[in-house]
């Protein structure tokens, strides 16, 4: 929150690979008293919280998780700074679900860092599998204190703070870990004599870029030694990795005992289905089911259309009315009407009611919708199902140069492109991250779904045609997302991304963890995007207030003359749609002076080809302002993003025109 609280004398840094339960531990330790802060001198957001233990104030810092020592973004850079630094105590979490891989990472930290407490998490999982760890043997091998906890159940957490305090107050000291590197020993000693640190000497031999930067002046001497090793044996990095693996295997062999056979029949059977040739079928069903459920809770679609096609109009209407979007818009309308009656009729009154409150309304409408989708997705993720979905869809995605992991940001984008773009971070290579972030806006989000469904309902009479059109829009959206990302791959000439993914064991999703993940992902919408949205709301208000809507609207409408969509109100609403797509309907309502969509449709009087052309354009033209902002902050390449936006508008226009021509010709023949 503020810099002062970051200067506590007692600091505990939580360090772990992703999925180790680090966030769970952080939340268990700090309760709700945590803040996001920009780390001093950095622009990276780091969670931290203060706790009082035995009368001492301790600062807990949640370091961005890293998978390995390969530096990626600048968030990971901070983690490395702490690992290679001397500040505070590092609590190094080991994932009980994958001891081997966690340990391989952990020993590398222990080699370069003193004052580390090793904590084996998910003890409840280990217990359920009958796995016993001899903590004493473990601790002797690693040369540090080792404790076992369950962050989720809060078991062992007090002991963790006690032990960390021992280290912080100097009652205990830990030495760095020494691993025997066999034939490399003499070379390591040689480098050590140059830089006076064994751990860093090993990292230099490995070619760690972060450490190499620390010893720029010794570069030549080190290169020489590396060449010597390569000439005599083989790649130094390979030898080091093998010795480390040997070290880890030894620890596991000597201190981990599996009492009962832990193979779970059901899980194995489930996996054999997912990994088979037909694994994509349950994967797609699961994904679509989850998304359909989220959509229905949020907007009533698609079940409202299904019920109305079956002739059950009553149920269909109730679904829409009691969907989240329906309820929230009801609340906002009522309260803004109430406010309007209190605020005098003046320019600032109009600014507050039509600008600021309208803007807040957008934020309020969208936040719960994003929360619902993120929650359902986090359940898929936490249960281990998401990783299986990624694997079984990998073959399909690989046809477009992506890995199956891309299904995750894609799925979130169906809810809202903003968190979808942010979720592209989970992808392993930069190339894939950029491709997915840039093509995400082709995925139809719920805001656009609302507009499409409303338009379809107003302009098309038969529910069958409505559902058909909405469904084909989604199909088109998927095709566009995949082929455009393939196109970006071709343009940037990046190599194809390949899947390499660890599959976590299945477990029943914890509501607590799912909620934390959900909150973590959703709140960025409020913190990062909402200010931006508010600013835009005021801007649009100004356009309307100063009577600029009609001239701008007619200018835009000229562009759509070939499709017969040259009504200035439509043109203006498309501009507003850039701010937030669901406002297309609202702005039409404002300029037409009625919120009855059927009256607006009477005035506009669009035929089938015109309606489809409009729907297609609305679905695919520029990403909304918030998404644009999110893409900028992920990709960080102004030229590339600008080019991508222009390309998207052109594609949307071209497809819209194409649909108009084809359907127009088709209807004339019939």
């Amino acid at each position, binding site marked *: 929150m503020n810099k002062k609280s970051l200067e506590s004398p007692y600091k505990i840094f939580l360090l772990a690979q992703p999925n180790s339960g680090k966030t769970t531990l952080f939340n268990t330790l700090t309760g709700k008293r945590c803040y996001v802060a920009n780390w001093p001198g950095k622009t990276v957001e780091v969670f931290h919280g203060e706790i009082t233990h035995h009368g001492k104030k301790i600062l807990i810092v949640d370091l961005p998780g890293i*998978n*390995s020592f*390969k530096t990626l973004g600048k968030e990971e850079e901070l983690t490395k700074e702490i690992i290679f630094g001397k500040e505070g105590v590092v609590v190094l979490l080991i994932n009980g*679900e*994958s*001891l*081997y*891989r966690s340990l*391989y*990472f952990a020993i590398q930290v222990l080699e370069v860092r003193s004052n580390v407490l090793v904590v084996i998490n998910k003890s409840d999982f280990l217990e359920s599998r009958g796995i016993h760890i001899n903590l004493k043997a473990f601790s002797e091998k690693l040369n540090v204190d080792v404790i076992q906890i369950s962050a989720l159940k809060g078991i062992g957490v007090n002991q963790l703070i006690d032990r960390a305090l021992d280290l912080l107050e100097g009652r205990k000291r830990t030495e760095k870990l020494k691993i025997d590197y066999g034939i490399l020993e003499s070379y390591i000693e040689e480098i050590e004599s140059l830089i006076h640190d064994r751990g860093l000497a090993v990292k230099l031999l490995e070619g760690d870029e972060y450490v190499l930067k620390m010893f720029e002046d010794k570069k030549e001497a080190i290169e020489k030694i590396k060449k010597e090793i390569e000439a005599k044996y083989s790649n130094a*990095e*390979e030898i080091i*990795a*093998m010795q480390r*693996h040997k070290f880890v295997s030894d620890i*596991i062999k000597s201190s981990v005992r599996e009492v009962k056979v832990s193979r779970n029949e059901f899980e194995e059977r489930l*996996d*054999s289905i997912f*990994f*088979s*040739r037909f*694994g994509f079928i349950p994967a797609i069903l699961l994904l679509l089911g989850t998304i359909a459920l989220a959509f229905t809770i949020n907007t009533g679609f698609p079940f409202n259309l299904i019920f109305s096609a079956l002739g059950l109009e009553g149920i269909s209407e109730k679904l829409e009315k009691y969907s989240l979007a329906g309820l929230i818009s009801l609340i906002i309308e009522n309260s803004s009407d109430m406010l309007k009656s209190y605020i005098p009729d003046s320019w600032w009154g109009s600014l507050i009611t039509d600008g600021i409150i309208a803007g807040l309304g957008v934020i309020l409408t969208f936040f719960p919708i994003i929360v619902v989708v993120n929650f359902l997705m986090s359940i898929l993720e936490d249960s281990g199902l998401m*990783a299986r979905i*990624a*694997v079984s869809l*990998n*073959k399909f995605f*690989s046809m477009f140069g992506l*890995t199956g992991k891309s299904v995750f940001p894609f799925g979130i984008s169906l809810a809202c492109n903003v968190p979808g773009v942010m979720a592209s971070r989970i992808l*392993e290579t930069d190339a894939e991250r950029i491709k997915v972030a840039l093509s995400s806006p082709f995925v139809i989000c719920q805001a656009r779904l609302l507009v499409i469904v409303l338009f379809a309902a107003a302009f098309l009479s038969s529910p069958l045609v409505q559902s058909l059109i909405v469904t084909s829009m989604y199909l088109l959206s998927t095709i566009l997302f995949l082929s455009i990302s393939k196109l970006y791959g071709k343009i940037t000439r990046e190599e*194809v991304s*390949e*899947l*390499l*993914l*660890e*599959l976590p064991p299945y477990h029943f999703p914890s509501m607590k963890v799912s909620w934390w993940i959900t909150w973590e992902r959703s709140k960025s919408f409020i913190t990062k995007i909402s200010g931006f949205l508010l600013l835009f709301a005021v801007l649009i208000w100004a356009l309307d207030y100063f009577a600029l809507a009609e001239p701008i609207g007619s200018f835009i409408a000229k562009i759509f003359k070939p499709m017969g969509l040259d009504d200035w109100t439509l043109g203006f609403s498309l501009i507003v749609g850039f701010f937030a797509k669901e406002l297309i309907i609202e702005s039409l309502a404002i300029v037409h002076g009625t919120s009855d969509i059927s009256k607006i449709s009477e005035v506009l009087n669009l035929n089938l080809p015109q309606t489809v052309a409009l729907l297609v354009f609305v679905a695919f033209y520029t990403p909304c302002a918030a998404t644009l902002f999110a893409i900028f902050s992920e990709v960080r390449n102004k030229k590339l993003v600008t080019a991508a936006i222009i390309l998207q508008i052109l594609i949307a226009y071209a497809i819209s025109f194409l649909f108009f021509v084809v359907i127009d010709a088709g209807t004339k023949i019939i």
Partner: protein
Amino acid sequence: MKTLENSEGRVTVKGIVGGKGLLRRLFDMGIYPSQKIEVLTNRPQVVVKLGDTKIALSRGIAKKIVVEEDPVEQEEP
């Protein structure tokens, strides 16, 4: 040549043909020469078991991992 892509059952990794980036990713996952791996399936993608963890790899990566199939142990009657 036997690679992870076209072998079955228990295998031992003999070598990895690939760039530095891929090598590191695989090493971090625990896939390195002399490591023993169990191939669960290799179509449509490769899934292997390595100690207590399961790892999925694309066939493209699996092709670059040279292995030797371990002799099948006689099961006790």
